[in-house]
């Protein structure tokens, strides 16, 4: 057991584009209580010590996906990571890896959002039904095929864990490919053919080398590595079946 700390040092990688060309570490000492998250530590800095510090947050309970950052070198939600687990410190906090830093802990999310839009992350009904025809029904077994992949909160921790995304920012990446699979694996959906173009592309599932760290850091147990890698099989089938069937292997 550590002696009960009264304060803890937090080092933040600061980047203020109008002020410095490369990011610099800045150390703050914040009062420590056993129930304090890293986010609360940053909020203390912003409220009491240095109002210029920039970071994103919203819900404080691991569902909005805003407060992801590198904490002691590992991608994590700062609201869900507790300072007591990082004693004695200093705790090093840096913007999510593999994304351009806009300012301090704020990264550019535009590339991620563009990718997310490209996979049509919504149900495209096979045969649209009118309200009078009732709901689209599904069995528990059909639900189980995609349920875990629908837990994604777009926090982008998996991107910060993916060296392939870091090396090639055009790679569609774990989170978006997991969401692509979430819709493709849904029995109510008919958009598979449109999404396969993204999946089959060089920047699609084949950009993945099964590092597997994305699934380790996912706070919602989505297991994006599984979604991506089982779709390598689907992509290979999609490619080879075209030679066997005039309908290109489409069901």
């Amino acid at each position: 057991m550590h002696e009960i700390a009264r304060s803890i040092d937090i080092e933040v990688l600061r980047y203020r584009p109008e002020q410095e060309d490369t990011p610099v570490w800045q150390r703050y000492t914040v009062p420590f209580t056993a129930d304090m998250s890293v986010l609360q530590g940053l909020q203390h800095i912003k409220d009491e010590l240095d109002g210029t510090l920039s970071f994103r947050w919203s819900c404080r309970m691991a569902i909005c996906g805003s407060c992801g950052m590198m904490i002691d070198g590992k991608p994590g939600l700062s609201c869900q990571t507790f300072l007591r687990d990082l004693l004695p410190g200093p705790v090093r906090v840096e913007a999510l890896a593999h994304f351009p830093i806009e300012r301090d802990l704020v990264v550019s999310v535009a590339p991620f959002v563009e990718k997310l839009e490209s996979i049509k992350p919504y149900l495209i009904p096979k045969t649209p039904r009118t309200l009078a025809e009732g709901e689209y029904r599904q069995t528990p077994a059909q639900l189980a095929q995609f349920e875990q992949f629908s837990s994604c909160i777009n926090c982008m921790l998996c991107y910060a864990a993916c060296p392939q995304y870091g090396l090639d920012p055009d790679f569609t990446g774990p989170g978006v490919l997991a969401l692509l699979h979430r819709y493709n694996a849904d029995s109510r959906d008919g958009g598979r053919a449109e999404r396969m173009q993204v999946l089959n592309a060089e920047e699609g599932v084949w950009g993945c080398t099964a590092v597997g760290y994305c699934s380790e850091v996912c706070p919602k147990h989505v297991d994006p590595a599984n979604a991506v890698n089982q779709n390598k099989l689907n992509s290979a089938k999609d490619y080879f079946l075209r030679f066997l069937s005039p309908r290109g292997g489409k069901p």
Partner: protein
Amino acid sequence: MRRPAPARPYVRTMHRWWRRDPFFMRYMVREATAVAVAAYAVVLATGMVRLAQGEAAWNGWLNALQTPWSMALHLVLLLAFAVHTKSWFEIMPKTMPFIEVGGHRVAASTITRAGWGAALLASAVLFALAWGSRP
């Protein structure tokens, strides 16, 4: 009011990225063991070629295998194969669609253990066959 400065996003380097996290280092080791697999394929393929060239060539290859250098190489390759097998089956559940048995999804750890079990069994059978057929 001061105008906001134009955006000037800072892109961090990926230089020596694999040294950033022990997870990445284990990944690199796993990938590197594939080289050992390829190397041993070359050793075996050489044996096939020597076999086709006749008895003298075949015996030459067998003798070459018994040199200390070859023994050391085999030890290194065996170690690499063990790491390869272990890590390969660890990642295997990630590469498969969900498997259901009796209405329950088979856990990833079960798939991994089944893979390790199959590898051990195959190795044991192969070893027994080799041992039983030694001259």
